[in-house]
């Protein structure tokens, strides 16, 4: 077996080992990496940044724990940005295992908001975000298409009570809020096909501004909706979340994770090049 054959048939355990080493080392040793912000991310940030105090936005946390590593940083950065701007948020989670995570994320972000911090040169005083006043978490109901259509009529139709069992009408935030007409935008952070429901049955029918947070592998599929104007912004995978964190001047899990992702990608590219060099050279040799 010559060197080119060896390059083509490397034991996959070496691939696993090198990838694991790169992931561990780049995670353990912090160093800065440059992050360029794309238009599809900046449009989401700018939209939220220009909303007025007490405006209401709708955030759908539609992912399961399997895509948590990519999606959680998006949720954290967008929701923290919105809360710092004193926007009101209506949450829902139309993914089966999503509500527990969404609840956890809301509590975590609530803790973070208590601390006074400075972002982009503006100091935001720490404050308490209160359930029912600053946010309402509607929870989960099965059949996302129907739930979205129902919410388009009235939030109370699919969700007479919130996740914690309180009737929606008991929340000050929900006074006068009937349906999507009263929210400034919907942000669907999704790792499932539920995002198609938001586009078809939500934006298509009720015509609200919609932004998407998607896993890296899903992002390319939704560019047609960005170009047609049905979606005003897309955060694609960990990179999208890192770009948002950079714009919000709030480096967190995504920028941390980008070190790992960048070097993991470089290892994968290295192996692809290695395999192809071996393949082309051995083919050349056979021809000769």
């Amino acid at each position, binding site marked *: 077996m010559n060197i080119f054959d060896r390059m083509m048939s490397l034991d996959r355990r070496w691939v696993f080992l090198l990838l694991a080493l790169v992931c561990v080392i780049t995670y353990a040793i912090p160093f800065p990496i440059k992050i360029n912000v794309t238009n599809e991310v900046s449009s989401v940030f700018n939209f939220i940044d220009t909303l007025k105090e007490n405006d209401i936005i709708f955030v759908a946390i539609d992912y399961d724990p399997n895509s948590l590593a990519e999606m959680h940083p998006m949720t954290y950065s967008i929701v923290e940005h919105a809360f710092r701007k004193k926007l009101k948020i209506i949450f829902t989670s139309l993914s089966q295992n999503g509500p527990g995570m969404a609840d956890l994320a809301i509590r975590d972000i609530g803790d973070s908001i208590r601390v006074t911090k400075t972002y982009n040169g503006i100091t935001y005083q720490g404050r308490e975000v209160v359930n029912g006043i600053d946010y309402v978490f509607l929870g989960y109901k099965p059949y996302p298409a129907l739930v979205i259509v129902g919410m388009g009529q009235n939030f109370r139709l699919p969700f007479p009570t919130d996740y914690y*069992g309180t009737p929606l009408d008991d929340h000050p935030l929900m006074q006068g809020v009937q349906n999507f007409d009263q929210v400034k935008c919907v942000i669907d952070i999704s790792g499932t096909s539920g995002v198609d429901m938001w586009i078809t049955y939500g934006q298509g029918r009720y015509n609200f501004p919609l932004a998407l947070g998607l896993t890296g592998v899903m992002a390319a599929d939704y560019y*047609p909706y960005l170009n047609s104007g049905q979606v005003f912004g897309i955060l694609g995978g960990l990179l999208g979340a890192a770009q948002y964190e950079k714009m919000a001047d709030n480096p967190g899990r995504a920028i941390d994770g980008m070190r790992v992702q960048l070097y993991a990608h470089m290892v994968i590219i290295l192996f692809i090049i290695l395999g192809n060099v071996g393949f082309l050279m051995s083919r050349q040799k056979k021809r000769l």
Partner: protein
Amino acid sequence: MKRQLPLILVFIFGVFMIFQYFVPHESSEWVFEFLLDWVYIIGIFALALGIWSLVRVSWDKIHKRKENWPYAIVTLFGLAAMIFFGFDYGRHFFSAEGLENFMFRHFFDYIMIPIQATMFSLLAFFIASAAYRAFRARSLLATLLLMAALIVMLRFNPYLGSFVAEYMEKTASWLLNVPNLAAKRGIIIGVGLGIVATALKVILGIERNYLGKD
């Protein structure tokens, strides 16, 4: 009548829902909301049927000692435990207190989340290995695919230098916004037309597979 009644109901409600979409009248909205309630109710029965089916299949597996039957015990135990804790040890059946139950939260936060996150994380290793073995420039199309993938992966690499990075970014944007967009639009329009055709077949009673064999 056993087959005709469902066909008539599907036809009436299917045609109604088509027209309702274009009629923004109050009464039409009221009927629509009423029908949505029905769908939730039917959906809850489907959920109950799903649980019953899972229990029956798992029990059958254990009873007949089929392959990997011990896993069925874990499935049933998990199902029973989460229901038990979710209803707060049977103390709260009609309120949401169970969601705050210590065991319910801990089972979800420290078992469910790590298990699912780990399973998905392992994919990175398999993708790396699969890309190394399968991503070969065997033909012109495979080479194009390979080049496109490398450009999209490398577009934000900060170590490329500003000149190369700029061209990578422009090429990647073109790939996403032109060929990718054209192909996706074609697929989306095709799928949309397919959905309309299937829906019409169901409403008009041409497609009857949903009725079952009896």
